[in-house]
């Protein structure tokens, strides 16, 4: 049995190596750019040498080794690939809305590399997105961190295999609407949300104890101890308690944010990031002290009641209070211009260029646990890079080329009109989708549970 396990582990290790070996790594020399490193300042007229997907050298007058393409970026800006800490792109489904806790489901089983939105995100300089479970549950499913290797048809190729596990939590209107109002079960209020969290973690502690008891009993000679029934949901919660998973919690109001901070502190959880966090500015000192910060919209508000008392100065207030702050999209449209969303923190709170750029690069990287690999232009990091015409924080900036692991996946000069990888064989005529504003998918697949303004609008037609 033991031997068989070793064999399985070896096989698994091999298969992971095999999977990552398939991912293309590129080499390129980008010359004479204004390099916005984010963590090491701005370097004028500088070169970045990439070899086998890794940033090998940042400096001046670098020469391309044999066979490495040189790109002249004179007059252009080079920045790290943009990282979106909240997205639902590249997912076949978003919500498993059947229970207030569904920690066992995994978005990495649902990755769809064919979604043209991934290419469109690349055209906006976004190289990594955090493909999240929806917000229908207090404890939702586990998220996947994606690398936008457009063109791969294997879901495993666009998953960032070396990123740590993360999980979606959600507070406030969404889980109370789906479960309390939609299904008539707890939680219907923010009190119930806290109870779900505390009950869940306490159950996980019992589960851990049961396994610990079994493990110690079974090591005794002649033990007849029976193992507890495996429960993936509770095991996942136990992994959270053990610090193996980063929580990314959909939240809006200050009171619910503060509640989760208290719950996390009581259970010794420190790996906690707040998402949306529209009222984070009200509890900025607490977020700064006890969590890995907040990932927020630049200016979205008033689309629902819990975001009515928002301010576009949120990111600036959080930053000035010392909280790690990122700007995210949660939207297939917004993800196309996160550089512009980050720039809004200069209008609303006077952020410096470096602070604003951090919010879409190194800060989301920290919140996803990948800042040792990506999020800045530094030697040794993965070569996710974007070349811009115009400073990326200018409203007139236009992304020119986007690289993931040194491989160019977007080039404005080689952009073909039709970037779809597959065309539906059942569609005679391609449908025309009229854009109706926010394309937030946080509550996708739960619409049947309640009337939305959109569904009322359609009934009216």
């Amino acid at each position, binding site marked *: 049995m033991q031997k068989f396990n070793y064999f399985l582990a070896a096989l698994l290790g091999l298969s992971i190596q095999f999977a990552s070996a398939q991912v293309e790594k590129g080499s390129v020399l980008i010359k004479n750019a204004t390099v916005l490193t984010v963590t090491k300042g701005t370097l004028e007229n500088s070169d970045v040498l990439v070899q086998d997907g890794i940033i090998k050298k940042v400096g001046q007058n670098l020469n391309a080794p044999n066979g490495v393409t040189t790109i002249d970026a004179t007059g252009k800006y080079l920045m790290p690939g943009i990282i979106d800490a909240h997205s639902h792109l590249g997912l076949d489904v978003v919500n498993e809305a059947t229970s207030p806790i569904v920690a066992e489901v995994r978005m990495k089983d649902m990755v769809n590399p064919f979604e043209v939105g991934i290419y469109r995100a690349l055209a906006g300089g976004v190289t990594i997105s955090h493909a999240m479970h929806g917000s229908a549950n207090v404890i939702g499913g586990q998220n996947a961190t994606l690398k936008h290797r457009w063109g791969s048809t294997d879901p495993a190729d666009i998953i960032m295999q070396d990123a740590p596990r993360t999980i979606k939590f959600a507070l406030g209107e969404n889980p109370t609407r789906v479960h309390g109002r939609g299904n008539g079960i707890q939680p219907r209020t923010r009190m119930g949300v806290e109870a779900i969290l505390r009950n869940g973690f306490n159950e996980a502690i019992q589960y851990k104890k049961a396994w610990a008891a079994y493990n110690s009993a079974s090591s005794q000679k002649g033990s007849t101890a029976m193992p507890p029934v495996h429960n993936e949901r509770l095991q996942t919660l136990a992994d959270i308690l053990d610090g193996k998973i980063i929580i990314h919690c959909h939240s809006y109001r200050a009171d619910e944010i503060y509640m989760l901070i208290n719950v996390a502190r009581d259970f010794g959880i420190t790996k906690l990031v707040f998402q949306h966090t529209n009222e984070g500015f009200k509890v900025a000192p607490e977020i700064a002290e006890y969590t890995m910060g907040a990932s927020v919209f630049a200016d979205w508000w*008033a689309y629902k009641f819990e975001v009515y008392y928002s301010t576009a100065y949120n990111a600036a207030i959080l930053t000035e209070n010392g909280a790690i702050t990122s700007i995210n999209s949660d939207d297939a449209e917004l993800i196309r211009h996160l550089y512009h969303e980050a720039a809004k923190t200069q209008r609303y709170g006077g952020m410096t260029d470096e602070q604003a750029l951090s919010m879409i690069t190194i800060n989301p990287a920290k919140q996803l646990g990948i800042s040792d690999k990506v999020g800045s232009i530094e030697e040794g990091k993965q070569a996710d890079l974007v070349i811009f015409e115009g400073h990326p924080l200018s409203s007139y900036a236009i992304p020119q080329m986007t690289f993931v692991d040194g491989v160019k996946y977007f080039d404005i000069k080689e952009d073909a009109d039709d970037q779809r990888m597959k065309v539906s064989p059942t569609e005679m005529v391609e449908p*025309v989708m009229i*854009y109706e504003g926010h394309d937030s998918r946080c509550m996708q697949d739960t619409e049947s549970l309640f009337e939305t*303004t959109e569904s009322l609008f359609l009934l009216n037609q």
Partner: protein
Amino acid sequence: MKRLNKTFFAFLLALLPMMAMAQIDGEFIKPRPGKFLLQNATVVTITKGVLNNTSVLVEDGKIKEIGANISASDAEVIDCTGKFIYPGMIDSGTKLGLVEVSSVPETVDYAEIGNFSPNMQALTAVNPNSVAIPVTRVSGVTTVLTVPAGGLFPGTAALINLNGYTPDQMYAGFKGIVMNFPSSGRRGRFDRRSDDDIKKANEKALKEANDLWDNAKSYASMAADGAELEYYPEMEQFAKATTGELPLLIEVNAAADIQAAIKWVEGKDAKVIFTGVSEGWRVADEIAKAGIPVLTGPIQALPTRESDRYDTPYANAGKMAKAGVKVAIRTNGQENVRNLPFFAAFAAAYGMGKEEAWKAVTINPAEIFGLADQYGSVETGKVANLIVADGDPFETKTNIMHVFIDGYRMPLSNRQIRLYQEFLDRSPGLKMN
């Protein structure tokens, strides 16, 4: 406890005059009329070029004088050295004032029940005290078209200035009857009708529109003949579209629908304006040939087709303008109409150019609305809707220093700024003393 950097201090200093007043408990800064001399600015007139070292005198709500040496001893002087004066921006399509919180139906007033309700007046439902209005105006947007939505003829849109305490005080002089042209496209992910259902609904709606139009024409001619007509408020309002008394704002987006709409308006005595026009770039020449102006947007939008190039929504306005269409830009927004300047910047960057993009948020909508004698440029005699900025207002880095609407100096505060002032350095902070 926290470190404020130099830039941030500079920004705070710039805000100081405003903040100092706002911080006095109980004091509220009101919009203030008066005689203002905006001295020594770079004036971007839009219609008459860029004037350096020029002053603008505002009096009685109007632009009284523009020149290098204006003497007005009794005017309040605002030094604008190194600053830029632009006309206030006009958003050509919003739901501003008609909705407070989108997901709360009690606060949503843009969509009335029924398919034929042209007598529904957006102006009636405008909430002059909407929290979104001061949030919008600090961006330099001074005037918006606010538009009802819903059925085939959902109501009458109205142009409003973002100053005033009653809808009538806000009204800027333009109304138009809205038509949602029968669509062959889908309205987002929530629209799960089959292709057949969409086609049938489309044909049915077109027949209904034709019948209503014919009836309205009869109604109008009978009314003109002095006939005693039954009370029919919908038809009474709609008849104004058939005679050209009120323009017809036709919301149309898919290319095939735009072509159908061009055909539909042919030979009708209507003043037609197209709105939306997401796929205008596909049939730009046809729109130009028909001589129909468009109010297009949002610019930051997804392409209408999966096969479309990613930047088609950014480039659409510019492509239509290049084909000779008169283009104005809209956000189609409610709480975030403040993004209009950034939408214009995207249009500018993706082919429209800055000059044309500026026109698309100033003089073009003014002309399309028939109000070019009052709005859309910095010219003597026009309504004093002006902004003063320390740079290009389309850039996020730029600060909007002053906003004038109807000659009123508007307070540059709003709830979002007040929350910033309260919470930037919260007291108590992490711990009570």
